């Protein structure tokens, strides 16, 4: 075990797989522009390349390379940059296997950051996870710890399908214990980050930290929140969430996206169908307020869900507790 920042843990996951499998490629903008780049030094320019600012071609090339037997990892920096290439992400990569009747597979990883609520303002701070999660053929990963970042990246690279790997930018420098050597975290297995019997709180990415901080404060009031991190939203481990709700009867979902663009809403819909019998209170979603993310610091903080709003939501669902 080593203490590593989140960003280094992702790199470690990629490095691990590139060493293991020569078919893994790593490319994107503004990397590998000198021989000193650690991945270039280790794996050479054949497998590690800088690309122009051409996301459509970058992702499209990854698809072709994947169909030809390679395993590309594309560094995209911000998830928003995928929007200029959204057809490749949602209407090409995940369709080829299906449309060919299973003749091809398209193993690739689209690595992108998101949610960088640090003054990056209108076009660089979005939380677009929900746009990807419902696309058949695509898998979507949202780690919240350094260890998961490494292990989920490694699993993403080994997966035979296109995977969107979303790195929350505010976690970049968060340190955590990361297993040395080969480390893999399975897809479709949620993690209970904190156990509790009074209320289930589901969150992804950086919102997991805020949920945990809220849970700590709530514990001081005698409220035990169970905090669940789905880790992958496609596939989604609904069982773990339903199991927790069966126990607590109460569900609060936290999401950095605006109200109608959330993973939270989708999960709420699932629980309202499959876990209805367990529910003792309304399912509350704590989401961003409905605005583009503003630049000014206090406004940005006002728009993004914070501890106080999570705590208030939990108190709300417990109000009618008997």
């Amino acid at each position: 075990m080593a203490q590593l920042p989140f960003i280094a843990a992702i790199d470690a996951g990629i490095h691990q797989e590139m060493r293991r499998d020569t078919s893994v490629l790593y490319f994107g903008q503004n990397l590998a522009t000198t021989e000193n780049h650690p991945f270039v030094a280790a794996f050479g320019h054949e497998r590690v390349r800088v690309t122009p600012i051409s996301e459509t071609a970058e992702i499209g090339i990854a698809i072709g390379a994947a169909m030809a037997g390679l395993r590309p990892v594309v560094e995209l920096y911000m998830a928003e940059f995928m929007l200029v290439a959204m057809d490749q992400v949602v209407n090409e990569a995940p369709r080829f296997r299906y449309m060919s009747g299973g003749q091809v597979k398209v193993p690739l990883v689209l690595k992108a950051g998101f949610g960088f609520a640090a003054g990056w303002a209108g076009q660089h701070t979005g939380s677009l996870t929900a746009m990807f999660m419902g696309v058949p053929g695509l898998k979507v990963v949202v780690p919240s710890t350094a260890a998961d970042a490494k292990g989920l990246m490694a699993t993403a690279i080994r997966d035979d399908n296109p995977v969107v790997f979303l790195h929350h930018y505010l976690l970049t420098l968060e340190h955590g214990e990361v297993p040395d050597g080969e480390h893999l975290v399975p897809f479709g297995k949620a993690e209970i980050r904190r156990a509790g019997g009074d209320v289930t709180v589901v969150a992804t990415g950086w919102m997991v930290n805020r949920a945990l901080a809220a849970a700590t404060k709530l514990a001081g009031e005698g409220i035990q929140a169970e905090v669940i991190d789905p880790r992958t939203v496609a596939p989604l481990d609904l069982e773990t969430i339903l199991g927790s709700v069966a126990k607590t009867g109460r569900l609060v979902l936290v999401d950095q996206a605006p109200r109608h663009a959330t993973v939270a809403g989708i999960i709420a819909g699932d629980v309202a169908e499959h876990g209805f019998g367990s529910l003792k209170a309304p399912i509350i979603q704590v989401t961003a307020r409905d605005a583009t993310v503003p630049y000014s610091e206090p406004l940005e903080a006002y728009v993004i869900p914070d501890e106080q709003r999570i705590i208030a939501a939990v108190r709300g669902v417990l109000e009618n507790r008997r």
Partner: protein
Amino acid sequence: MSVQALNAERQIWVYKQMLRIREFEESVKRSFTEHPGVIRGHTHLADGAEASIVGSLVHFRLGDALLATYRCHGYPLVLGSDPKAMMAEIYGRADGLCKGLGGSMHLTDVAHGFLGTSGIVGAGIPHAAGVAWAAQIRKRGEVVLSFFGDGAAKQGAFHETLNIASLWKLPVVFVMENNGYNVVTLTAQEDANAAAGEPLAIKAKAYAMPGVTVDGGDPLAVHETVGEAIERARAGGGPTLVESKVYRLSAHGNLIAPPGVPLHYPEHEAIAVFGRRDEYEAALRGDPVPRFRGTLVSGGVLSSRKADEIKVEVAAEMSAAVAFALKSPFPRLESALENVYA
């Protein structure tokens, strides 16, 4: 570099492949009237482009790859795909090349080097470059052919990919089939080079890449032009943009309509939309299939009798494909949920 000329036998092979494409497309077209309802969605024919397709594919070797668009029936026929399985796919049957999941727009036959198509204009161009990157890494002199239309050159994907392919010297040849139309839009109505009277191959200058224009109605000319580009790519010299000038002899695709409305192939847009009957009739007179037959027969390469025999043989092959496809069952319902993930 100079490309070796084709001997008589290969020329006849070229002619036969052209005829097979034509005959297949005619069978597809007839299906709309002879077997109404059997073909759904949108179907795009390659008639008029046969010389361009076959002339390009003469150079195809084991290990090479090809990617194309929704207008994709011609290529796999030449590469060796079974027309029975192709027709079954177009009819949505269990024995289809893609198990009925893809349909006319998405024929794929990996075993024969046809990696697939995108129905989104321009989107398949980077895929071809990606396959070429894999070929570059493998270092076996394999090459990738990327086919697309003139309209596709107006998509960002074209631009972004050609720059990278040139920069990385990828072993790929971009064959733009310029058929003068994007559905009902004339090339000069949407392309600044065309409007200025310039060839579309000039676009290659924006990528420091060779760009050439060829008469896509002449399979031997295409054979030479694409052949040079392929040799260059195999030798590590990088990509080429080939503008192959063809004339699409059918309408863009069958009628677009919701279920219930019988589908058919409408009149060509040159006539139906622009009233350019002369243009269309000139194109018919220049039809590359009889044109090449004429060349071969008058050059003494092929006798009329032999040419007729080929025609009969090919017609039989394609009607067998139709018969096979008609008899093939529909896929099991649950097969709709297979192959979503690998």
